[in-house]
């Protein structure tokens, strides 16, 4: 949410000294490694080009990588880290500024972008996401220079499809650059006030939860300690899936710009990355596989200590009539008091109980009334957290369009990961049931996919989990033209026991990407 400020005032604010600027490892490294080409300018810690842009830590890292690959910069790994840290801290994005593009930062790539400009998509979002530029702030001159860089470096830019049909260079300079300068200016109040805001440390105890593809809902206690290095932390996780299977792990993290948490984790033996936005009361983000970014889970995190008692999450989000299952409730102040889960639900056993967590063995009766189950834990009530159902009214598969990639040892495959959420369509309300049990199947998307036997060649969809494992890369001698094992598939989920309740998605299985930058 950007607040309109008279631009004069804005730039004035930036001109005011914000206190003595101390030399840091990052700024010293810029002086040493960058200033031969990017001249120091008047003003504290200011270098040509560098100081006229703001971007995410990934954005800075990618620019610096380009300085290495294209301009012959030689940079020790440590200096690169220091520079990224320094630039992301001093020339980063405020939480409001990155909010609309969290999916890109979190590598949720199976989505369709849309923009507030008639030609931006075709002009700027066909080689990489349009979000890449949305995650930057620059004055008009710097947006123009970005256009010059594109055409100067990649001469074929203006000759490609969706460029050769228009005056690409002219449009980029005279329509796109001014629009970006206007909507994503270097200076604004969001950034000003974020820089003034007091920064809080994530050190302490937290509880985290999410849904692990193919395994189910999980929760974990997270302990975060400071580590050696600026804004560096170590963390350990100790938790379980709702099935009872344990989940544990550890990792290292760095916080950039006061809220951009980036961690390397190892969870139950699997190496994963974690991106969190720490700026809100409930940090949230995603844990994912760096090489197989479709494989990931949205997570939320709350501190152990909280002023207010509340139930914050129910795993799962719904109970089926006639079934006995485990239910995990997460929140604060859950340690004491009577537990009531609404009409028709009986607590058979309390498996674990603490202030933050209840692990219960519950049974939903056959004649349970479909709808919200009003729950009461001592003094705490939660009316719309847990639902009961007999049959699912509607199913929604997401993503609606998935892109999987065939792979090999050098470029690992990218999976297709689908989930199916159930709904009760009431007269005046739609009640989400969360992920309900479904069976997955795959069929050709169209006639061409049928003729080319894409289902046979492109890979395998796990009927229970909705996870698609693509075939190996390379020419397939069994196919016409020795084509790669690509395909165009229809992925269908149907509710177990209610085969007619279905939804489907398209899955394009395509070739590897050779270049996998952190911001696509």
């Amino acid at each position, binding site marked *: 949410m950007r607040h309109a400020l008279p631009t004069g005032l804005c730039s004035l604010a930036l001109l005011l000294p914000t206190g003595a600027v101390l030399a840091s490892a990052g700024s010293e490294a810029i002086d040493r490694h960058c200033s031969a080409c990017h001249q120091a300018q008047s003003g504290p810690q200011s270098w040509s080009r560098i100081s006229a842009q703001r971007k995410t830590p990934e954005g800075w890292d990618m620019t610096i990588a380009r300085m290495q690959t294209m301009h012959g910069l030689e940079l020790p790994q440590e200096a690169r880290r220091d520079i990224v840290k320094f630039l992301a801290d001093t020339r980063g994005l405020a939480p409001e500024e990155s909010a609309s593009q969290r999916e890109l930062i979190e590598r949720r790539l199976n989505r369709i972008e849309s923009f507030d400009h008639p030609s931006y998509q075709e002009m700027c979002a066909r080689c990489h996401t349009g979000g890449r530029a949305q995650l930057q702030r620059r004055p008009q001159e710097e947006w123009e*220079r970005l256009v010059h860089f594109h055409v*100067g470096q990649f001469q074929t830019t203006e000759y490609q499809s969706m460029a050769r049909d228009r005056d690409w260079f002219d449009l980029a300079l005279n329509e796109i650059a001014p629009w970006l300068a206007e909507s994503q200016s270097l200076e604004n109040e969001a950034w000003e006030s974020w820089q003034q805001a007091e920064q809080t440390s994530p050190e302490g105890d937290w509880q985290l939860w999410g849904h692990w593809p193919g395994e189910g809902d999980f929760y974990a206690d997270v302990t975060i300690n400071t580590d050696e290095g600026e804004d560096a932390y170590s963390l350990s996780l100790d938790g379980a899936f709702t099935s009872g299977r344990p989940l544990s792990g550890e990792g290292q993290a760095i916080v950039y710009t006061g809220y951009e948490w980036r961690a390397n984790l190892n969870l139950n033996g699997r190496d994963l990355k974690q991106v969190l936005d720490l700026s809100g009361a409930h940090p949230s983000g995603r844990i994912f596989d760096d090489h197989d970014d479709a494989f990931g889970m949205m997570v939320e995190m709350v501190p152990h200590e909280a002023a207010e008692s509340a139930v914050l999450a129910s795993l799962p989000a719904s109970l089926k009539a006639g079934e006995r299952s485990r239910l995990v409730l997460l929140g604060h102040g859950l340690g004491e008091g009577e537990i009531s889960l609404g009409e028709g639900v009986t607590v058979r056993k309390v498996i674990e109980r603490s202030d933050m967590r209840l692990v219960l063995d519950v049974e939903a009766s056959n004649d349970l009334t479909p709808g919200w189950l009003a729950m009461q834990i001592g003094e705490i009530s939660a009316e719309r957290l847990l639902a009961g159902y007999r049959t699912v009214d509607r199913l929604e598969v997401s993503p609606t369009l998935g892109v999987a990639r065939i792979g090999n040892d050098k470029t690992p495959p990218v999976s297709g990961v689908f989930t199916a959420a159930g709904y009760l369509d009431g007269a005046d309300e739609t009640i989400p049931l969360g992920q309900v049990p479904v069976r997955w199947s795959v069929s050709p998307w169209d006639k061409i996919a049928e003729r080319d036997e894409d289902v046979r060649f492109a890979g395998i969809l796990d009927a229970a989990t909705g996870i698609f494992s693509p075939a190996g890369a390379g020419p397939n001698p069994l196919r016409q033209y020795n084509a790669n094992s690509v395909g165009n598939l229809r992925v269908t989920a149907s509710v177990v026991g209610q085969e007619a309740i279905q939804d489907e998605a398209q899955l394009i299985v395509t070739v590897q990407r050779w270049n996998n930058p952190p911001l696509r």
Partner: protein
Amino acid sequence: MNSSEIKLLNLTLMGLLAFAAQPLVVNAAVADEASADEVREYLVTMVRPNQLYVIDPEAQEVVRTCDVEGAFGSGTLQLSPDERIAYVLHNRWEDVVGIDLTSCEEVFRASGSGNSIRAKSIASLAVSPDGSRLYSIWDRARLGLDHYEVLEPQLAVYDTAAGLAAEPLATFPAPRQVTTMGAAEDGNLYLAGADIYRVDPENGETEIAIANRNWDRPSFSPPDSLAMWSMGEVANEFLRPYTVAEHPGEKNEAWHWGISRVDLATGETENKEIAPFEFIIFSMVSDPRERDVFYGVYTQLSKLDARTQEIVKVIDLDHTYYSVNTSYDGSRIYLGGASSDIAIYDDDFNDLGRIRLPGDMSTATLKVARF
């Protein structure tokens, strides 16, 4: 063939080309029993990493390979009027190199880059009909210490006798987005850009010869064309295929292949739809015997007839080819580019064989030369 005979032949050919509008047609029967002074037809192309190949399509064998110093790219080729010198766009699209096909000698080299300017040409090469001038269009960017500045493209006119460090005789501002070029016998240059431009290389004056992006055809979408391949020497024409939608967005929407064409002998221009658009074609040439019949190539080889507006024949190929050409008598079709084999078909698409090369031709042109 000894060198004095080559020179003699060369002069004869020069004369023929200078005065006769029609290209020389090699009689296939005569070519078969070619004696020492017979004109033979060769295929010329560039192969990765940096070899120019001269191939005898009749014998289906490589006659000569010439190393061309520098990195591959784009491999766009144009021939001198005597067809003995191939000018190749080389060194990552930054140099034009002239190679004598009979000796592999490097006779010309020019680069648009230098003085902090990086210049690349996107397939824009042409040779004047008398062979004395080479034209190229350079897309230029000034590489500053900390930023790039894209400059106006430049049409550069070179003296083909200027040797191995040729500097342009003249330069003129050129439109952006120009790819292939053709030089007509009347001295004009034709440029495939947003429109087909006619340029007087004496003074750089530029006008629209065939409107494409700026055409005024209310029931048609603007055309889309990918023109990267500089053939047309056999029919002596400058041809750019395009795809277009008629009545776009309406019930009767129809997609077509069309062509913009300049007859390089007469300077006559035409623009018309020739057949329905059913598959992608990367490059196209006309049949030298019937210039309203066109051959197109990509994953298919196709024959389109503008007279009937029909796709006459299509076959699937074993892989993609980018560059199509024909023999001067029109009886054979040559496919090159993309990978590492040249395919030969007859005009009824019977497979006449493959010539395997040690590297990929990639974006290189497949030219037909006679000497």
